[in-house]
């Protein structure tokens, strides 16, 4: 049935398969427990990683972007200057399940990641469907779990261990921990009644907001917990609609604005002039480059966002040079050096 030529080819294939199996066996080592409590055998070394959701990619931008096999979302042209060159040139692969454009599994295979970084904001919400579709890749994955901003120091240490970037992530983790403790200390010293109340304005009309217990306003919770919209979050998406009359009634001392269209008109629109914060000119637009400092998406940028917010709410108690702080942060976390003027352009858009 087989002639000699065929037999030889088959033999060659068998040898090749056997060899490649043994090579992979040698490469496999290092058992590790990930943040969801799963035991995973890590490949060694890990050269390329891919994050199936943008959240995982965000944290990789700060850990070591050169390890990314590809991006989930394209980087906007205006934001390119905030990334090192190796990130700018990465191909857009997309994401698995949810958030934006979905990845083609074969493109992903071609990109050859050694490890997948799964991101989960909540241990219970681990997405089985994503896991199922990722099993086809036959690439090991680890979970990085951050339910709160206060989990970030641990996430950094964990990723440092997994990716062998311990020295770097120790710095990032230390910075995050220090910031969280610093702000906590300041807020605790200020009695609740002296903390300014805050309205968080989203959308072009500024009339979408979040309940005080929403994951979208974690920074407000950390910086004094005086969100005027006190309710129980009805859905994960947020964006709860309120009326302008309600906002006037809330009498917020400060407005934190998410949308530039809204921010540009708020001081001109006569309807808004009766809101306390507008009268007192205490409306602030959240910096958003390369990604938002406050939320949407929730990322490590919120650590800097927390400083920014504390500085706005307690300028007397928390005196910092915001431009300098931000430049240090961008240098440390994003690996980019911005001039003072460029930084001002980000902070006061």
């Amino acid at each position: 049935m087989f002639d000699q030529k065929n037999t030889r080819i088959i033999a060659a294939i068998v040898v090749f398969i056997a060899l490649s199996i043994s090579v992979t066996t040698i490469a496999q080592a290092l058992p590790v427990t990930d943040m969801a409590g799963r035991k995973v055998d890590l490949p060694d070394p890990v050269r390329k990683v891919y994050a199936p959701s943008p959240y995982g990619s965000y944290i990789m931008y700060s850990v070591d972007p050169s390890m990314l096999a590809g991006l989930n979302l394209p980087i906007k042209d205006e934001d390119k200057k905030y990334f090192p060159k190796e990130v700018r040139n990465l191909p857009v692969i997309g994401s698995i399940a949810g958030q934006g454009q979905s990845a083609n599994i074969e493109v992903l295979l071609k990109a050859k990641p050694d490890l997948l970084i799964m991101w989960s904001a909540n241990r219970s919400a681990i997405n089985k469907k994503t896991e199922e579709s990722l099993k086809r890749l036959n690439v090991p994955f680890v979970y990085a779990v951050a339910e709160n901003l206060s989990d970030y120091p641990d996430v950094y240490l964990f990723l440092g261990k997994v990716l062998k970037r311990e020295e770097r992530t120790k710095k990032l983790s230390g910075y995050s921990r220090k910031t969280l403790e610093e702000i906590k200390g300041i807020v605790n010293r200020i009695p609740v009644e002296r903390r300014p109340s805050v309205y968080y304005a989203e959308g072009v009309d500024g009339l979408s907001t979040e309940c005080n217990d929403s994951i979208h306003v974690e920074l407000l919770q950390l910086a004094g917990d005086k969100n005027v919209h006190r309710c129980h979050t009805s859905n994960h998406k947020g964006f709860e609609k309120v009326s302008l009359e309600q906002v006037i009634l809330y009498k917020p001392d400060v407005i934190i604005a998410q949308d530039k269209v809204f921010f540009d008109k708020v001081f001109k629109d006569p309807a808004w002039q009766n809101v306390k914060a507008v009268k007192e000119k205490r409306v602030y637009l959240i910096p958003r480059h390369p990604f938002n400092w406050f939320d949407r998406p929730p990322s490590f940028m919120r650590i800097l966002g927390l400083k920014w917010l504390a500085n706005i709410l307690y300028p007397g108690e928390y005196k910092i040079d915001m431009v300098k702080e931000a430049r240090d942060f961008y240098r440390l976390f994003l690996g980019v050096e911005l001039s003072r003027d460029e930084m001002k352009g980000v902070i006061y858009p």
Partner: protein
Amino acid sequence: MKSNLFFPVMLFILVLTAAFSMTLGKYPLTLNDIGGFFLFKIFGAGSMEPERYQLLRSLLIDIRLPRIIAAILIGASLAVAGTSFQAMFVNPLVSPSLLGVLAGASFGAALGMVFSKSWVAVQLLTFCFGFVAVLISVGIARMHKGNTILLLVLGGVISGALFTSLLSIIKYIADPFNQLPAIVQWLMGGLSFVDRKVLLTAGIPQLVSIVLITFFSGYLNALSMGDEEARALGIPVEKIRMFLIFLATLMSALTVVLAGIIGWVGLIIPHAARMIVGPDNKVLVPASAFIGAIYLVVVDDVSRMLFNVEIPIGITTSLIGIPFFAIILRKAKKGWN
């Protein structure tokens, strides 16, 4: 209804509804406050602290009034556009979205929200793509020979489907954290988007269109008998139809510019009006305008008062419209003939 009193009564109800809506809001204002404010503002009667005056002015003139006016304009526009479409296409089941204007405008809005920085550009794109979608429908109908009405309807199906899928593409490539929720919100409609400047710019063409369609409603009667009969009466069917389609598109696209997608008004209000005043378009068109206006003002009151958060008005109009439509479906057929 033959009575000459009908329109004055409708106007009275509309004014009454609007006035009543002025008293509704999350900020508690008593009738005394409101009465006092208008007495002071118009006649200079009584006295008022500047701070209080400023607050009342803001609540009543800047917040509630533009919203109520927008509800009136949008309700009337959608109802009149729906009425003229139903007559023109000799079919009681069509709505202003028949030729794809809402799909096109939705796409334009989403496109602007994703790719443009200025809100004016978003509004322009919304408006333009409403027209582009209708032009495509008309273009498709013109490409082929045959029953114009049928071809227009099919053109509308194609154009609507095209822009719906283009909208999906935009949603797909939109930033899932910021842009996507904004687009979704917009597609659910809401009068909180209305601001005074846009209201002035969009309101005038809307009013003019309503008046023009009322003026041309005699032709609608002829068109509703079918093209052959209308031609036999010596009416330039094609020209009149294109002109009416243009007006209806203009009004409908502007409603999206003002407040996003508000469905079902253009379908059910003409039915409700027909049940009250009968099928004569000379009466039906203005009656639809009034009923649509009153309806949307009331629905918006519900939207903003029912819960602590606002319900997008597109949801409310659909939830009310669908059962209503299911109930009158049988009557609709009867009322038509």
